[in-house]
């Protein structure tokens, strides 16, 4: 049976922002639809409306010509709309089976049978009796999908499903989605990744600042045309110039090991590499393979053997981050609001946080506010942070602006080495472009970068040398020109 889902003139206004401005869309089963847009374009609000989490101010939704009242998530479920959220809606400490039975009305045995059938049919394998926190991101997503499939949905909405998946897992997911679509499930796929839209979808709707800007067949589009629609302006193409980099060694890591007592952390085994001035070393890998531990060891959050890190001819393995900054290292951690900045503190206070010693921010233990503010204004204008209020709490900055502020804060002291971890994670195309340009620029100024990232495209674009981390071990260092994303994918999965 065909399914027809129609969104008619939906508007949702939040204080200070129109999340959805008079959006109308129509979907039919048998096709895979992409809903494309930058962060904050209103895609998430729209799917939250479809799943009953958010109630629109105006507008109606029709399923097969019948008007739908979606006042709560259970209304959506009752009407056969299934949703897989970007941030998993799972109960980590409950077992997989408990997670599945909790919103099902079926008997234990019946449900078990049903789950078995689904897993066989789509070739999923998940252990039902382990707590969810033991699962990988890809497996967690499968649990979410199984949860939807149990209800035999007419509509399946996937919100940025690949942000936590490996390449391998992504292609598996795409195969499953195509299969679902063939079986008559209407699929709406929300993403800001253009490549995926081209690979998977039949039709694409682009949103920008709460408005629907275009609906088109995928055959009539290409990556550039979609990117321009999404951003609303022509994007500059950035390309790294390949120059002869200097041969002066800046940092050398020798036999670095880290053993953790926490079973959720990864041990680092015999890390060895060196990096010259003006080079960018990219470290690829599936998240959870020791990247966060490697970042912490390099930044001094975890202190190691003194001789294991040689930086600018000094042995600094036993120094803390503050002391390493004195030797002109700078850091941009993965989690912007947890590790890089303090959300409740103002922009200028956050700027002061990494500059204790070598600055004149503090006089005899007192804060020199005007100096810090002056300095903050300089960062904001030099690094394009889109605000003029330096008293604003940093939690109110968008991800892109916050990342620019953090990178700016680190770079304004002109360090010799910047270590960054997923610097563009969750950012929109415009901000990503800006960060990439900035990183290329500092390489051109003969400064070095260690870029730990789970985004293969980013690594291939920016790195001079690439290595892959897998289960806490680093592969051999390769020249970026000799590497393809397929090759990286194999290494990331533990192959040779």
């Amino acid at each position: 049976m065909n399914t027809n889902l129609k969104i008619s003139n939906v508007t949702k206004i939040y204080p200070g922002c129109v999340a959805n401005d008079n959006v109308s869309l129509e979907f039919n089963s048998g096709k895979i639809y992409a809903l494309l847009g930058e962060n904050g374009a209103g895609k998430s609000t729209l799917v939250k409306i479809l799943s009953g989490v958010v109630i629109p101010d105006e507008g109606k939704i029709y399923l097969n010509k019948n008007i739908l009242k979606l006042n709560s998530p259970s209304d959506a479920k009752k009407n056969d709309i299934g949703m897989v959220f970007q941030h998993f809606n799972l109960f980590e400490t409950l077992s997989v089976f408990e997670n599945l039975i909790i919103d099902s009305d079926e008997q234990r045995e019946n449900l078990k049978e049903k789950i078995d059938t689904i897993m066989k049919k789509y070739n999923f394998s998940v252990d039902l009796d382990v707590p969810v926190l033991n699962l990988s991101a890809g497996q967690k997503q499968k649990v979410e999908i199984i949860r939807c499939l149990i209800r035999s949905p007419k509509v399946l909405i996937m919100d940025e499903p690949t942000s936590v998946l490996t390449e391998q897992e992504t292609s598996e997911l795409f195969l499953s989605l195509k299969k679902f679509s063939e079986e008559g499930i209407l699929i709406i796929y929300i993403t800001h990744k253009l490549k995926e839209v081209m690979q998977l979808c039949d039709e694409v709707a682009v949103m920008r600042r709460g408005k629907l800007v275009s609906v088109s067949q995928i055959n009539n589009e290409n990556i550039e045309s979609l990117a321009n629609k999404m951003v609303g302006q022509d994007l500059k193409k950035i390309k790294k110039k390949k120059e002869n980099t200097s041969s002066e060694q800046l940092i050398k890591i020798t036999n670095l090991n880290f053993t953790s007592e926490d079973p959720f952390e990864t041990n680092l085994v015999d890390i060895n590499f060196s990096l010259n001035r003006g080079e960018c070393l990219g470290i690829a890998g599936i998240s959870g393979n020791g990247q966060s531990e490697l970042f912490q060891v390099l930044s001094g959050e975890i202190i190691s053997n003194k001789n294991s890190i040689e930086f600018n001819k000094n042995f600094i393995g036993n120094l803390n981050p503050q002391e390493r900054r004195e030797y002109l290292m700078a850091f941009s951690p993965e989690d912007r609001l947890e590790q890089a900045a303090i959300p409740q503190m103002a922009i200028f206070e956050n700027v002061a946080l990494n500059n204790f010693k070598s600055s004149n921010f503090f006089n005899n233990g007192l804060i020199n506010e005007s100096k810090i503010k002056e300095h903050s204004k300089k960062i904001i204008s030099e690094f394009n942070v889109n605000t003029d209020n330096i008293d604003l709490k940093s939690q109110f900055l968008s991800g892109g602006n916050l990342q620019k502020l953090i990178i700016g804060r680190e770079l304004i002291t002109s360090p010799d080495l910047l270590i960054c971890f997923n610097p563009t994670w969750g950012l929109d195309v415009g901000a990503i472009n800006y960060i990439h340009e900035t990183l290329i620029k500092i390489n051109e100024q003969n400064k070095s970068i260690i870029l730990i990232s789970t985004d293969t495209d980013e690594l291939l674009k920016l790195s001079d040398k690439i290595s892959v981390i897998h289960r806490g071990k680093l592969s051999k260092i390769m020249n970026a020109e000799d590497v393809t994303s397929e090759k990286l994918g194999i290494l990331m999965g533990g192959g040779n």
Partner: protein
Amino acid sequence: MIVDINFVGLIIASIMASAVPLILASCGELITERSGVLNLGVEGMMIIGAISGFALMTVTGSLIIAVFGAMLAGVLISTIFAFLTQTLITNHVATGLALTIFGIGISAMIGKNFVGIPGKEFPVLFEGLKDTIPLLSPILFGHSIVFYFAFALPFITSYFLKKTKIGLIVRAVGDSPESASNQGINVRFVRYACILYGGAMCGLAGAYLSMIYTPQWIENMTGGRGWIALALVVFSTWNPIKILIGAMIFGGLTIIQFHMQAIGVRIPVQFLTALPYIVTIIVLVVISRDSRKIRLSTPSSLGKSFHKDN
């Protein structure tokens, strides 16, 4: 030295009797905490239960009305807590502390007229079997219905949490209220219910003290048992069966203290009263070494307010 075997039985029985209010209050609080709500008002709810039970018994003369009235009083006072923390989204810790202070104060005020009034005898079950089996008889027979209920409660609670759908929902809400809400579970309703249930059990624990354990009203008669019950929940790592063990240890400490004084071994009373807390801290240190275990057993959202965004 010949130890009379029945005397040992009696000591064990008295330890069990002193464990009853701890088990009741802890099992109630455990359900509350499993739903993610930290109610530090246990002591206050217990003392309200104690005075309500005793007052109703004196006024109406009915034990049944008194016991259920005490539970209802616990429910009512916990409703205040539920309204504040779930509807008005106040901080759990501050509200719970206020509840305890409020309970102690108001119970003293109501209790003025009941000081010095003798309590009633509470009927016991299986009294005829009291002399049949050596050692076991005094342990098994001749106790009030509340006593038997208390020792069944940890098993019932464990079954409820592990095997029933409602138990699963309670755990789910405690694990992630956001996910639960997105799954269509009414988080606020579940938490209200768990808080009220906890209140009822604390009320019953209080009534046990003032009507059965020491049948009279004395101001502040819970004497910190509410705090021990709270510590016990943590001690048990939110596992009802371990509450039973912990309550026996903590209850035992009080009883042994009396007997030690009788034989003339002098350990400072203050040290023995502090022991439950010291033991709890030791247990906490031991389990925090295993981060996986603590993550699996602690309700992740414990003490955090849940705002439903719209």
